[in-house]
């Protein structure tokens, strides 16, 4: 197994061939914020929160790359901080808040939400960008779970876990662009799904309050991280359980 040496923020890091920059960084305790990434699921590089500068000393005009999907190379020079990256990450999180209707005060995930956490991480305090304000609904037809599309950030973790881990592929993405939505089966109500196994994995992996368990009040709303899914881990900053 080949091991590569690269530098991340000036520090020498060793990582096995095939590792992503994200994995190498986390092994070395260097934090890189993420949203659509979840250990145990295939990556898509879609949220753009984990963008890092790669070899910008060679090509200053190069665009930043997603750390979750960029494989390490021998001698690679990675920078995870800096004004351009801060600006990009802050704008991306701001875009997400402006894209749909996020009202934290009435959300089951308030204070247990990865979107909120990322806003804190990247220093996003208020939203200046134009609000899209789409008309979106809640599908509460399933006996155990519900989805509020107003809170969805289209990270596609639900799609990926249902396809890759449960194998049911109940969820997928329909439509295109700003009109894209996650859907069950033929865009039919979740409660009528003929493929859903009610395993609840999608609810577990959802970073916001979009997918939630019914019957919980806002106060008791923290999603329980069930112990039988140890192979799916959300990254927590050092010091938190």
């Amino acid at each position, binding site marked *: 197994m080949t091991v590569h040496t690269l530098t991340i923020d000036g520090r020498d890091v060793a990582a096995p061939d095939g590792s992503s920059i994200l994995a190498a960084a986390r092994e070395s305790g260097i934090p890189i914020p993420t949203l659509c990434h979840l250990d145990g699921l295939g990556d898509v590089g879609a949220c753009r929160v984990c963008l890092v500068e790669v070899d910008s000393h060679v090509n200053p005009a190069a665009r930043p790359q997603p750390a979750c999907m*960029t*494989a390490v190379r021998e001698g690679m020079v990675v920078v995870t901080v800096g004004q351009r990256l801060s600006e*990009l990450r802050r704008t*991306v999180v701001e875009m997400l808040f402006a*894209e749909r209707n996020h009202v934290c005060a009435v959300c089951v995930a308030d204070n247990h939400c990865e979107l909120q956490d990322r806003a804190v991480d990247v220093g996003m305090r208020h939203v200046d960008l134009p609000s899209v304000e789409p008309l979106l609904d809640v599908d509460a037809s399933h006996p155990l779970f519900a989805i509020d599309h107003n809170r969805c950030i289209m990270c596609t973790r639900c799609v990926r876990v249902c396809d890759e881990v449960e194998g049911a592929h109940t969820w997928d993405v329909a439509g295109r*662009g*700003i009109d894209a939505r996650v859907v069950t089966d033929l865009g039919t109500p979740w409660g009528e799904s003929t493929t859903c196994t009610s395993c609840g994995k999608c609810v577990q992996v959802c970073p916001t309050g979009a997918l939630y368990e019914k019957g919980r009040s806002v106060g008791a709303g923290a999603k329980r991280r069930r112990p039988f899914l140890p192979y799916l881990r959300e990254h927590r900053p050092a010091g938190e359980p």
Partner: protein
Amino acid sequence: MSAVRAAPPHHRRTARTAADVRASAHVCLAASCLASGADTVLAALDDEVAGRGLADVEVKRVGCLRLCSAGPLVEVAQSGQLFEHVTAGDLGGVIDALSQVRPDRPRQVSTRPFFTRQRPLVTENFGRVDPESLDDYVAADGYRALRQAITSMTPAQVLGEVTSSGLRGRGGGGYPTGLKWATVAKATAPDGVKYLICNADEGDPGAFMDRSVLESDPHRVLEGMAIAAYAVGANSGFVYCRAEYPLAVSRLRTAIRVARRAGYLGTRVCDSTFAFDVEVRLGAGAFVCGEETALIASIRGGRGTPRPRPPYPAASGLAGRPTLINNVETFAGVPWIIRHGGGAYAAIGTPRSTGTKVFALAGRVRHTGLVEVPMGLTLREIVFDIGGGVPDGRAFKAVQTGGPSGGCLPADHLDMVVDYESLKEAGSIMGSGGMIIMDDTSCMVDVAKYFMDFCRDESCGACVPCRVGTTQLWMLLDRITRGTAERADLDQVERLSSTVAAGSLCGLGQTAPNPVFSTLRYFRQEYLAHIDEGICPAGVCSISEAHA
């Protein structure tokens, strides 16, 4: 729903040898002329010739005769006379010209700059061959390059010619073709399988070069693909063609069928041990599928969602195998390069942008249609000498190249040279070849909004900057065109444009802000007029009374 009917099948090509024919009327049956009634003209001309018993006159269906704005077009091949706006009821001029053809009468060379300034290379068969006739193609030196490559050149030698030609990707990226081929040639797949894809998803609004090539000379594209496959070691090819081009698709399918029967495709290409076959795959209306990784996803029957690159398709593409993806025009240039040598191609154009480029000239210009010119002409030469300038007494305002990924260049840039580097420096890109001329009836803020609307609509939706950013940019541009924007909104436009350009996952998002960047660079005063004074200088935007 199909956009255009395919050509009617009833055209009778009377079997004659070339010796029997004294005069030929070539009728253009590419989509534009067809839409103007060229099929009726063809049928009427057939009847007229038969009715008069003109046994030595041939009426032939051909591909694009270039001057699309003057269609239906009929050319008398031997004399070179071109008849414009021909109708079924008025064929007198054509019949007279046909009767006057004599073997000793020299072919009249057009003196019109629209034709004389062109350098047909990719389009050299346009108007000469019947796109549905393999015999015509072969008679015009067709498949000679393929035979030459397979029987007397090694793949490395073929690669060498393409590299020395300096050919660059004609789909818009301008990536050195030889380098791309070399990457695929060197790449190894576990089972040795490599693929070849021809990108015929011409999605730039205002571009019809690839459509014209596929409708007028489909065999040329197949020949180029087969030569490329030989050079890189691929045995399986696809043409991914947009569904909005049913005529191109049908001509391509016919060409594949006859080429297979004649042994130019299949298990023994030109009687050799080299095998190569081609399949057509249809798009279904998604501009993003012109992006290589989205195209691959679509060929696999999925949503056209791009993936981050690296890895590049040349190393890991369709089904994880090394895949060569080139544009229609790129492949169509290959047979000429093999026949004449890479050096001859490199001698045309400029040192860094060699050869010719096919442009689709459209918009506010006298002569619209298909134009193939050497790289290195100035914009002025193309727009005014070839295009004939702006009609109706209006003033030239801007020329737009590169579609939604490109930019608008103003009058003071007319003397710049058209090549990859110059266009990039000026804030536009070469793009696939769509060149739209705008006059003073266009508002440049409205134009920027138009292109942003396009990108917003066509965004696949996977990544945040493009999905949300193009929507927000459109909202802000809309505010500006309504006269309800403030300076702070312009600052937001600039901030968002940077984020979308730097943060997007694929080329669609990365280049979506280009029309905004270029119009802010050259037409900033128009933005400010809308914002500060509430007026649209071009008189296009309806600015509400309350904010005027």
